């Protein structure tokens, strides 16, 4: 097995034993309070620290640190995912391909999902049990195990926890995957000797791009959490962030070259803060003029007003940019000179091979930037006074004002920061994608999916949502049974998830229940 040295070193730095050790000590010591309220023991925290640090490095440690509630769910999900994967592999090898799909439709599948979703909530109400989440669980369960779920939930009417959902959801995924493995034997996700590395590769693709998606979505969620509105100008702010970075680098290096006489190019990393500052100001000014009246009670139907006015703002930005920058694609230099990190292909047995796995260098860099920024934001929100004030304002404006916080400023700050995050992800991506004035459209659609999936208003939710959407898109395009259509429907996969989440659980993964 050949492993690029760079990969190994990077893994050591980015994850591996070092971070496992950090996780082991960091996690239990700092987050006792939160953990206590979530009823997580110190040992669990230590184990989570080690595993999270080893596998995901700072991402794992950070996530668990800020959101201890994730620990159990993550372990559960990982456990179930592995079981699901292995068992469907086994099943696929022993089951006759002609048999199951009809059988499955009889025993499980969408039909039973509908039946269960229809019957079970009624039963819960009839026996006076708490019917929260029952609809979702019933639909998932019906899909996964058909009538069995009805029997189970009918008789015991258990309280539906998130764990239930995870198990049932994974079971549903298992169904699909197994059917897939049985029927679609040429699909690289289930068939080739490399399919495990293929899946790893696609998951890695998803995680890398997903972390960048998150950065943008986090901005959206931040605005929502403080102001209760969804910004429809987010895509355009993302786009314009890229352009600010581009022009800064262009003119900046020209000026520098003129002064010094030597050919100087500025690393695009510097475009990120520049774009951030400019767009922060843009967002803040816009908020002051157009959104402030909303909070002063001068405007009826606030959320509709907000949709429309941010929408008009975006419209303006996009066409102004088009008029100024023109329709020709642009891109900046790379962040780093490494094209890609590669794990070479290695044949182990006839049936099993490893690799190749590729991660594009610039993307990995942008991902790291994105993750650092998100955690910086989380740190800002959780641990600094201004951050606390932002959170406080989002929870109760009046109470915040009573403690001496100026909620008007907090609104401006939140919109500015949200816009800034969009711009930063734009500036982080312009070295990676060809940039045109309409580049925000695709991205913003995805951000909506992410924030709704993660729960509007939740920053960790947006982080996780981004990664999930990234993975879903990657696996969707990578595993779609018709290879010719997989990529064309890439965006559609996320949209389907989106529609389902909105219908079944509008509060998303971490959303606060609406009151």
């Amino acid at each position: 097995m050949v492993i690029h040295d760079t990969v190994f070193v990077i893994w050591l730095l980015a994850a591996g034993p070092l971070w496992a050790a950090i996780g082991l000590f960091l996690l239990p010591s700092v987050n006792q309070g939160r953990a206590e309220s979530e009823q997580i023991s110190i040992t669990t925290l230590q184990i989570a620290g080690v595993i999270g640090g080893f596998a995901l490095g700072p991402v794992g440690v950070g996530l668990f640190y800020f959101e201890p509630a994730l620990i159990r769910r993550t372990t559960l999900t990982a456990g179930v995912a592995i079981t699901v994967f292995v068992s469907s592999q086994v099943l696929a090898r022993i089951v006759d391909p002609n048999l199951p799909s009809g059988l499955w439709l009889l025993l499980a599948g969408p039909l039973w999902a509908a039946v269960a979703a229809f019957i079970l909530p009624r039963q819960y109400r009839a026996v006076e049990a708490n019917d929260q989440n029952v609809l979702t669980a019933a639909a998932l369960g019906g899909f996964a195990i058909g009538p069995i779920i009805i029997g189970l939930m009918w008789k015991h009417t258990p309280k539906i926890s998130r764990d239930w959902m995870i198990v049932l959801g994974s079971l549903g995924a298992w169904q699909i995957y197994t059917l897939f493995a049985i029927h679609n034997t040429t699909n690289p996700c289930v068939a080739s000797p490399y399919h495990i590395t293929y899946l790893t590769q696609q998951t890695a693709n998803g995680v890398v791009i997903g972390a960048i998606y998150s950065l943008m979505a986090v901005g959206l969620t931040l605005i929502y959490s403080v102001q209760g509105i969804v910004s429809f100008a987010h895509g355009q702010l993302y786009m314009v962030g890229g352009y600010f970075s581009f022009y800064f680098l262009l003119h900046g290096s020209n000026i520098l070259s003129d002064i010094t006489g030597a050919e100087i190019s500025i690393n695009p990393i510097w475009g990120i803060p520049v774009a951030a500052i400019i767009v922060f100001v843009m967002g803040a000014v816009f908020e002051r003029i157009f959104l402030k009246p909303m909070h002063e009670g001068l405007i009826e139907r606030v959320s509709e007003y907000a949709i429309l006015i941010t929408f008009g703002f975006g419209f303006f930005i996009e066409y102004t940019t088009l008029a100024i920058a023109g329709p020709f694609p642009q891109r900046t230099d790379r962040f780093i000179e490494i094209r890609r990190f590669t794990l070479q292909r290695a044949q182990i047995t006839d049936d099993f091979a490893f690799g190749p796995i590729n991660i594009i260098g610039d993307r990995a860099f942008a991902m790291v930037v994105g993750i650092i920024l998100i955690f910086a934001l989380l740190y800002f929100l959780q641990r600094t006074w201004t951050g606390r004030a932002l959170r406080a304002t989002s929870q109760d404006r009046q109470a915040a004002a009573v403690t001496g916080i100026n909620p008007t400023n907090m609104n401006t700050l939140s919109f500015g920061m949200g816009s800034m995050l969009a711009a930063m992800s734009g500036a982080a991506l312009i070295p990676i994608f060809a940039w045109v004035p309409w580049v925000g459209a695709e991205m913003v659609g995805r951000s909506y999916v992410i924030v709704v999936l993660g729960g509007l208003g939740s920053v960790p939710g947006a982080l996780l949502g981004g990664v999930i959407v990234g993975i879903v898109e990657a696996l969707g395009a990578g595993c779609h049974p018709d290879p010719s259509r997989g990529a064309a429907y890439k965006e559609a996969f996320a949209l389907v998830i989106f529609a389902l989440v909105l219908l079944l659980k509008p509060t998303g993964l971490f959303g606060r229940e609406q009151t």
Partner: protein
Amino acid sequence: MSDINLLLNRVSKRFGGNQAVDHVSFSVTKPELIGMIGPNGAGKTTLTNLMSGMLKPTTGTIYLNGRRIDGHPAYDVTRAGLGRTFQITRALGRMTVLENMMVPGLAHRPRARRLDLEERAHEILGLLTIDHLTNEYSRALSGGQRKLLELGRLLMLEPSVIILDEPFAGVHPRLQETIYQYIHRVHEDGKAIILISHDMDAVFELSHRLLVLHHGALIADGAPQAVRSDPAVIEAYLGHDEDD
């Protein structure tokens, strides 16, 4: 008038960890005037919401005139004959007072002639002394006038059971007088009224029967005088001094 038969059977509502209404059972079978009291947050409004279909009970059943109505949407309950007002008034702001009256009017009797309904609306507004505001946008009304408008809208519905949630809060004494008259009049029409109020005087003066809620549970149900001296009620709500 129509037979009245409202029956609540072990009705509960939880909000997350908060048991807002806790296994409440009672029934109303005749055109009585019932007062409902209890400290802030006792669950009075929540119970109203449960009865009127705005919320779905976590457990329990509610029957109205022989039909099961718990979990039914509010418009269904309203059609079954239960009308309510809101503690925090909910006038339909960018519609005129007349339009506000016509909404329940037309919803209740879609086949009626519009002119007849308008005539009736005028009549009711006159009764409530706000007929001079007929063509005013209701968002321009004062708090008390909004209360009156809500009461007026109820009359367009001709319900058999009426729940008034704090009709006196924020209302000027003169208007209170109007509401008193309204209550008497509606009662005389043979409707049951559940009156929720913090205004003890009004409650004791008006009601024939008293329900007391505390922490979501019904801790007393009986004649006002009996309830007044109930130690549990004194402890929870009226305070010791009451009988000192």
